[in-house]
């Protein structure tokens, strides 16, 4: 974990969502710290709670959701913010890019209105000044004919271009932290590469921290410093991106890596894990991965493992791979 005081510090985060009767826990335990300028990826399959975790940073949860545990931004508690402070926080400190730009940009208003609004309505920047800034950012994200684009409606732009608009809108607010929720999942691979390159360049130019939500481990490792793996509503492993392929200690992380098909593979079968990913709502007692884990022993089915140091990172596993390998070496 980084030595500097963390920009974002999440400890023991739990999120309960309202259901028809009472509430159910969607996110059980998330621990995560992010230093200024650092990029971490939150990786997991559907239902793992990665998206809810990102949204909780901006308090963008469905009505009735309850957040427990600590969630601090630059030392300040996010759940404790007043309405005014929260608006200020959203307007200038953290910006979010969503998966589906077509749904997330108002289709009835122009692209220019959308871009400028974040500065004028949220921050009181004069319109002329806001337009100037927005045009500059559009250049940066590779949209050269800014003036024409700003007059168009979202329906007239391709998905890739709209996602650049969304990123431009986030960058124009000059935030300290960028939350990116599967920003390239709906895009083609070639467009994904362009968009990720733009994000990486912009981050480097501004020293911008990023929490990147994705289901793709390789992409996560390529664009982030650290990878945090989630399963069934809990963080199960955290490690530096460089150590992903050889240093993963949690059986789930290893299984995910083994089941991801790759261009360089030969026609041998994939090592698939049996069963299906569980959502946070349906976790059993003990380790949530135990029902699918080839290494599970009795303790795994009764005791919930907590994150502890394993190799170069931390892992929530009673029998991580690293210790075993270390034992064998010893």
């Amino acid at each position, binding site marked *: 974990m980084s030595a500097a005081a963390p920009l974002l510090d999440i400890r023991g985060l739990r999120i309960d969502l309202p259901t028809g009767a009472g509430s159910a826990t969607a996110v059980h335990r998330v621990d995560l710290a992010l230093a200024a300028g650092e990029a971490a990826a939150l990786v997991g399959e559907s239902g793992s709670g990665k998206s809810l975790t990102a949204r909780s940073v*901006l308090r*963008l949860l469905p009505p009735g959701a309850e957040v427990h545990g600590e969630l601090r931004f630059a030392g300040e508690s996010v759940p404790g913010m007043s309405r005014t402070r*929260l*608006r*200020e*926080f*959203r*307007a*200038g400190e953290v*910006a*979010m890019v*969503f998966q*589906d730009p077509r*749904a*997330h*940009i*108002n*289709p*009835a*208003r122009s692209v220019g209105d959308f871009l400028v*609004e*974040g500065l004028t*309505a*949220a*921050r009181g920047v004069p319109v002329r000044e806001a337009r100037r800034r927005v045009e500059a950012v559009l250049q940066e994200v590779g949209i050269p004919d800014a003036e024409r684009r700003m007059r168009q*409606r979202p*329906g007239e732009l391709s998905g890739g271009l709209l996602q650049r608009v969304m990123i431009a*809108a986030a960058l124009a*607010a000059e935030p300290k932290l960028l939350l990116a929720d599967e920003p390239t999942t709906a895009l083609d691979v070639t467009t994904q590469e362009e968009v990720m390159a733009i994000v990486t360049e912009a981050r480097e130019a501004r020293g911008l921290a990023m929490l990147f939500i994705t289901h793709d481990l390789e992409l996560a490792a390529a664009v982030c410093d650290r990878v945090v793996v989630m399963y069934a509503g809990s963080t199960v492993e955290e490690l530096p991106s460089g150590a992903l392929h050889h240093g993963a200690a949690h059986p789930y992380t290893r299984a995910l890596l083994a089941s991801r098909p790759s261009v360089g593979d030969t026609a041998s079968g994939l090592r698939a894990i049996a069963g299906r990913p569980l959502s946070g709502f349906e976790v059993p007692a003990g380790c949530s991965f135990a029902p699918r884990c080839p290494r599970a022993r009795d303790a795994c089915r009764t005791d919930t493992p907590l994150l502890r140091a394993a190799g170069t990172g931390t892992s929530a596993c009673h029998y991580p791979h690293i210790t075993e390998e270390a034992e064998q070496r010893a």
Partner: protein
Amino acid sequence: MTASFLATRLTMLVVTVLVASLGIYGAFMLAPGDPATLLVGGARKPDPAVLDRIRAEYHLDDPFFAGWWHWFSGCLHGDFGRSLVYRDSVGHLIGERAGDTFALVAYAAVLVLVLGTAIGTVAALRGGRTEALLTAATSGVMAVPTFIMSVLLIWVFAVELPWFPVYGSGTGFGGTLSHLTLPAVALAVSWVGYVAQVTRTSVRTELRGEHVETARSRGVPESVVIRRHVLRNASGPIFAVSGVGIAGLIATTAVAEQAFGIGGLGALMIDAALKQDLAVVQAVSLLFVVLFVAVNTVVDLVSAALDPRTAQGGSR
């Protein structure tokens, strides 16, 4: 809004009116018995010489399309023929009564637009108890049709609490207003409920919209979010249903006029229908259809202008 959308809607308007006129004129031929007998008012035993004169005057012996064209082109020029029952020109009968109907429908339309959208918006934005209460009230009110509401209003506000006059349409602006208040309320009430419900649903839907989430995530003040994203985007569908409501008023004004004894077009049509005076029924129903279709077309065009997605979607 594209030019082709405009052209499609206007063509649709013309086609509907043409088909409607054919249907209305054709209904006359479908009627059991001799059309000429019907024209004199059905029941009485007419003189054969009179019938022959009527046949000639109404072109009843012409081929169907010639007869229709004679009638329809006459209507286009404002010549709706003569009523043998009322012994007056149909155009004159209509002219005398159009004002009251127009005033009544306009009054009710204002009520529908203002109250319906206001109640719906307040319900959706306030949420909680207010929403539950308003939703219950509006769905209850939707089940009370004009004729029952008329009876209730007469009982409460004219008999028990004699605040409003019950019959006729009054003179002068103030007189008209007070005479038309109860009929307009009776006419508007169920549509107010309907418009309020649809408004509430579309505002609710927009409130949950992902683009609204984006605006909030950027710290845009809630009042701006509501105005620029929620209400702006909901205005298209809201306007569309309000239009359907106003068009619906045209269809049901006859009931309110009948209940409150207002001598408008609707009451004329019902009276003529009871007397089987087809010349009048045809002319008035054609007029109602034209108004109904015209209102619907205007509404479509305006909602397309408010929300470009409607027009791009093309098919309706």
